[in-house]
């Protein structure tokens, strides 16, 4: 067997084993938190009181917006709620809450019990608008600037770390 073929075969196997080794240390669970630094897609959610719609263009009016998908039936949403309350104090950040596949009565009770951090409150009854924004589980939050760029995605409940990261980004 010619030497070149031998070397090629050896290198191919070496390459495959190396890649296997590298992958052992990587995270296999997929999440969409890498889909950032793009423009946020078009969307249109109805206000909770059905007085109108909140669309992508409305985001331009705010310095920074945090879109937060939540529901009264979602346990982790209760866990992240205090963080949202802290964030609501920020002047530069406006929070758009989208109530996801929920009932008005339960949603209102949730907010009256735990506090309402939302500058704007909308609802997505059948969940279709969440798909436009690439949401696949709740709670999920997206941070956008006034140029409609997605700065960060938070899949799952917001943590204190996330709070610090947001404060950093909106300086």
């Amino acid at each position: 067997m010619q030497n070149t073929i031998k070397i090629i075969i050896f290198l191919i196997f070496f390459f495959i084993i190396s890649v296997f080794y590298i992958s052992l240390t990587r995270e296999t669970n997929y999440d969409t938190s890498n889909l950032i630094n793009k423009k946020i897609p078009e969307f249109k959610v109805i206000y909770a009181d059905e007085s109108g719609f909140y669309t992508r263009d409305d985001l331009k009016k705010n310095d920074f917006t945090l879109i937060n998908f939540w529901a009264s039936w979602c346990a982790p949403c209760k866990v992240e709620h205090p963080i949202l309350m802290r964030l609501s104090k920020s002047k530069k950040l406006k929070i758009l809450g989208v109530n996801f596949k929920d009932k008005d009565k339960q949603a209102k009770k949730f907010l009256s019990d735990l506090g309402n951090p939302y500058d704007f409150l909308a609802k997505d009854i059948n969940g279709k608008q969440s798909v436009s924004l690439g949401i696949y589980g709740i709670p999920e939050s997206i941070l956008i600037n006034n140029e409609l760029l997605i700065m960060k995605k938070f899949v799952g409940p917001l943590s204190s770390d996330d709070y610090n990261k947001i404060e950093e980004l909106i300086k």
Partner: protein
Amino acid sequence: MKLKIILIFLLTNAQFLLAAEKKIDPNEIHKNLRCLVCQGQSISDSNSDFAQTIKLVVKDLIKEGKTEKEIYSFMSDKYGEWIIFKPQLNIHNSLLWFLPYIILILGGFFLFNLIKKRQ
């Protein structure tokens, strides 16, 4: 005579071959989308909440007249390429799509040469 028989068969078969047209089938699309909150199931096979929502959105998109390609592009734009089971044809995946046939052809050449050498 034989040639005529062949032609008749081919023509009659061909007529039906061409008759099978392609209409947009939501089920096909569901099968090609991955359920992101499940372990490897497709939207078609999953009973999860997420799958049900995606099915509604796909229904709307079909009603709007979007083609299959546009629907996949919509989904991969929002959720990443991971959600589509058929690897997209781009530079990253060209090796995946072409290597099998390249190897088939190379194997064929190799065999051909081997046999020629050994006659």
